[in-house]
Each structure stands twice: as C-alpha cells, then as structure tokens.
C-alpha cells in the first residue's frame, strides 16, 4: 500500500496535478480554437474587398482563366478609366453631393430644433407627441414610398422632366429622421439644467442657448448624424431609381453603378465593373477610417436601450 496521501477530486477521479494539466490544456485548446475561428471569420470579412481590388486590376483574359490568380499578373489600370467614363462619374458624383449635402444639412436643422423642443422645453402633449413619432419607426418605409411617389409625381418631379424637381424629390422626404431626433434628444438631456438656468439669469434666450451652448456641446453626436446621413445618401438606390426612371443625367452614384453594369454576361466587363465598385466603396472606407469612433458610436447607440 502507498502511504502518500493523495487528494482525489471526486469530480473526474483525477488528482490535483492531472486536474491542473487538464484545465491548462483545455484553456489553451479553447484559446487556439477562439483565435482560429476569429481569424477565419476576419479573413472572410476581408476577402470580398481583396477580391474586388485585385479583380479591378486584372485584364479580361486573366479574369476568365480557369485557375484563378490571387494577384494580377499584369496591372491593368485601364479598367478604372473605363469605369469612370462609362458611369459618367463626374455627373453622378455632382448629383450625389447635391442631394446628400442638402438633405444632410436639412436633417441636421430639423433634428436640432425638434430635439431641443423635446429635451428642453415644457409643453402640453410633449411625451405623447414624442411617442407617436417613435412609433412610426415601426412602420415599414414601403408604406410611405408608394404615396410619396404619387405625391412627387403629381408635382411633376418624376420622369426626369426637370432636374430641380428631381433633386427636391430626392431631398425633401429625407429631411427628417426620427431616429436622429431620438439620438440628439438623449444627448441634449444630459446637458445639466444648471447651465440652462444660468443662461436664463444672464438674459440669454432659448434660441441663443440652443446655438451657443447646446449645439457646441452636442457636436460629437451632430458629427455622427452628419456622417451617417451622408453615407445613407451615397448608398441610396431604390428611391432615386424611381424618381429618375432611366434619366442617366440625374442618377445618383449607386444608380449609375447598377445600371451601367447590369449583368456579367460579358466576362471581359468584370474588370471595369470591379473598378467601378472600388470607386464607390473607397470613399466610404476613407470616411470610416477618419470617423470610425463617431460611426461606431452612432450605430451602437441604437442597441443600448435594448
């Protein structure tokens, strides 16, 4: 008989050393699996970007090879000049900037006013009014699109008859965002009451207080709204498509992208097509790189309340 006292953990009938080794291996295996999974998923996230860029630099012949190459053998810049001229890039970027900037500035103004009223002013029916606004967020936008299409076409804004009308139709319905009002109201509410009272004592009006104190303090949120809204305009497709209905000179960038390269029937086209998608994607990625914090904070804010 062995006289040593051995501690046996009832659980797995292992002694302390074995238990320690086991738990250490389990931890290492777990860590390795976690890393492998995350790295694999990260590569999966990046792969389409990589593939887009290298395909945009390949010649048509190389794209059609049975065995795919993972780096272009000849760098073929011509895809880019083709993409720019075929999409009529200068025109569509002008349209997109006009629509994007005006609707974004408009949204900022309406949002600041409404958020100020909901956050700072006391008036009858405030909470009820706010709840009604929030509840419209539940209703699918398609319900509104149908009637809005009727409305703007009754004003002669569709069909590309006049550019100004088309711009107005692409801007006006998107000058209010209830989600951003909600976001900014939260932000305004955090500004302490004492500041407001102090401003009152100094004889400042509500109007001055809003622009001199609240707006500067809420600048980060306003930047977030500005960027997200601008990105929304850059990515909008279906409404401009309805409004412009085939008038290329009024297209926004995404409409031009889709209508210029509507199918892959000609494989020689794939290079120019990918060059066009790079041109559309790069500005978004640049904005993301410079304003990562603002974008991610704005997007995640939606989920905090649960």
């Amino acid at each position, binding site marked *: 008989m062995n006289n040593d006292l051995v501690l046996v953990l009832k659980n797995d009938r292992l002694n302390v050393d074995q238990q320690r080794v086991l738990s250490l291996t389990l931890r290492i295996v777990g860590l390795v699996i*976690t890393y492998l*999974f*995350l790295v694999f*998923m*990260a590569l999966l*996230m*990046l*792969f*389409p970007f990589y*593939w*887009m860029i290298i395909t945009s630099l390949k010649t048509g012949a190389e794209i059609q090879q*049975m065995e*795919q190459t993972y780096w272009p053998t000849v760098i073929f810049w011509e895809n880019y000049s083709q993409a720019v001229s075929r999409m009529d890039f200068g025109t569509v970027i002008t349209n997109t900037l006009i629509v994007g900037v005006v609707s974004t500035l408009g949204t900022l*103004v*309406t*949002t600041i*006013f409404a958020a*100020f*009223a909901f956050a700072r002013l*006391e*008036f*009858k029916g405030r909470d009820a*009014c706010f709840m009604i606004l929030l509840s*419209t967020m539940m209703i*699918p936008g*398609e*319900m*509104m*699109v*149908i*009637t*809005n*299409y*009727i409305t703007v076409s009754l004003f002669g804004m569709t069909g590309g008859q006049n550019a100004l009308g088309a711009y107005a139709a692409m801007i006006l*319905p998107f000058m*209010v965002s209830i989600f951003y009002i909600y976001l900014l109201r939260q932000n305004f509410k955090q500004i302490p009451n004492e500041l407001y009272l102090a401003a009152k004592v100094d004889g400042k009006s509500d109007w001055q207080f809003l622009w001199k104190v609240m707006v500067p303090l809420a600048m980060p949120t306003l930047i977030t709204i500005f960027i997200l809204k601008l990105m929304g305009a*850059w*990515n909008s*497709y279906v409404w401009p498509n309805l409004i412009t209905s085939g008038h290329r000179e009024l297209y926004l960038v*995404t409409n031009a*992208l*889709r*209508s210029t390269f*509507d199918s892959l029937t000609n*494989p020689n086209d*794939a290079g120019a097509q*990918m060059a*066009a*998608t790079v041109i559309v*994607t790069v500005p*978004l990625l640049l904005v*993301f790189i410079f304003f*990562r914090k603002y974008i*991610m904070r704005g*997007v995640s804010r*939606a*989920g*905090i*309340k*649960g």
Partner: protein
Amino acid sequence: METKNNWKAWLYLAPVIILLAVFTFYPIINTFVVSFLKGYNYTNGTSQGFTFENYVQILSPNGVYFKDVMQTALPNTLLITFITVPISIIVALLIAIGLNSIPAVKKLLQTIFFLPYVTNSIAIGMVFAVIFDSRFGVFNSILHTQISWLTYNPDTGQSVNYWAALFALSFYIVWHSLPYKILIFLGGLQNIDQQYYDAAKIDAAGRIKTTWRITVPLLSPQILYVMITSFIGAFKEYDSVIGLFGDSGGFFDSTTGPDTMKTVVYFIYQQIAQNRVQYASAAAVILFIIILIFTGIQFMVSKKRVHY
C-alpha cells in the same frame, strides 16, 4: 410651468411636423386607402370605389398576382428570413463572445468585423456576383466545382439552381449583416458585471456552461433587440437581391433556370414603377401585417425568456 413655451415649442417642432405630415403620416393612411380602391388612377385621383379586389388578386389562387407574390416573392422572403436571421445571430454572438475573451486583439479585429457595415450594398453585391460567377468565380475555383450559383453557364449549359442561388444570396446577406449585430452584442457584453464570472469560476463552471448559463441570459435584451430588427430587415430584403442578380431580380427563363429571387419588396417597387400603385399598396399592407405579427410573437416569447 410657463405656458408661453407652448407656442414656441410647436414653432421649433414645425419643420419636423410639416415634413412628417406630408411624407409619413399622410402616406401611411393614404396607402391603406389606396390598397382598397378599385382601378385607382393616381394622375387624376379617380377610382371606381371601394374594393377588396387588390388583395384578392394577390391572395387568392386565381388572382393575377398569386404566382408573383404567394408562390414566388413571399416564399423567397420567408426562406431568406429564416435562413439568414438565426445564422447571422449565432455567428455574431460567437464572434462577439470570442472577441470579448481576448482583449489583446479585440480593437483591431473589431474594426475589421465592422467593415462590411460601411459598404454600399449594391456595390458589394456586385463583388459577390463576381465571386460566385458560374464560369470564372473564385468560389467555384476554391471548391473545385462548376455550380451555377447566380447565372446560367453557357459553357456547361447548366441552368441556375434555386437552392444554390439562395445559398449565395444568404451568404451575402449574412456577411453584410454581421457587423451591426457584433457591435450591439459587444456593447451588451461590456455591461455584464465581472462578478457573475467570478462566481462561476468559484463554482468551477466550464467555459461553455458559463457562456450558456450566464452570458447568453444576461445578453438577452440585446439578442431580442437584434432579433426584432433583423427580422424586420430580412422581410424587407431588396438591395442585396439587386446587387447580386441585377435589376431583373434574377430573372431566370426556361434555359437559365425556372425561378427568380424576387422578394416582396421587389414586387412592391416593380408595381410602383409600372404605375399599379393599388397592388403595390395591398402588398405593402400585407408585408406590414406580417411584420407586425412576427414582432408581436417575439415580444410575447421574450416576456418569459428575456432577463432585464
């Protein structure tokens, strides 16, 4: 309270209320009304009175649009929803928990995982169309297959397989929808008190058990939120179809394949573009009711399961 604030407040709210009245409140009511109008002509506002006809044409087996909606668009939409929502939530949850467990690389990977969010869904859809191309797509090349995922392959004469197309579409939708979910889940994970995990450690609970018994229940408000928003998003899937299959929504004829990937929202926009707004309205109301029912069910189930 000062009563003089009343009119001032409404003045501040005026721009929002006017715009909402014209472009949100009136449209909601009007779309309902139009969906019940017979032979509605919006250019002069005339109709032949009240009818259920628009709904009958969509819902009854003899209706003109029964095949387009009930046999094509709605099944497509439901399949997309029930495939992509559970998969993307589970994968996003795994990624978020994984990221949270290794703080060293969390920041860098988090940025990479957010990249698909800041993309144009049409543009990246076109990239996936190149990746999944039947003749020269890299997906076939990696798998050593010759599957016609999205397009007819003239070299092999193979038409598009519906399930292959659905796979490619779901793959893209999941890829595109992960970032938002990961971000929300990571936000929720940050708020979980470390002491729950310390307690679990004392009880010698394993990692899987800890995740299942502590992390998931404590994350349930975020999971519910993500579930509801992604169900709504999936029911309204449209851009991804256009990006992947082109304007035609993947029109496959007898040689290229029998089906299409058109969704309910695709049907709605198609009807608007062809000036048949009453059918578009009826379809939109049907979609709204479906979304309402699903959201209601999720809230009811969540009452038992979600821990606030």
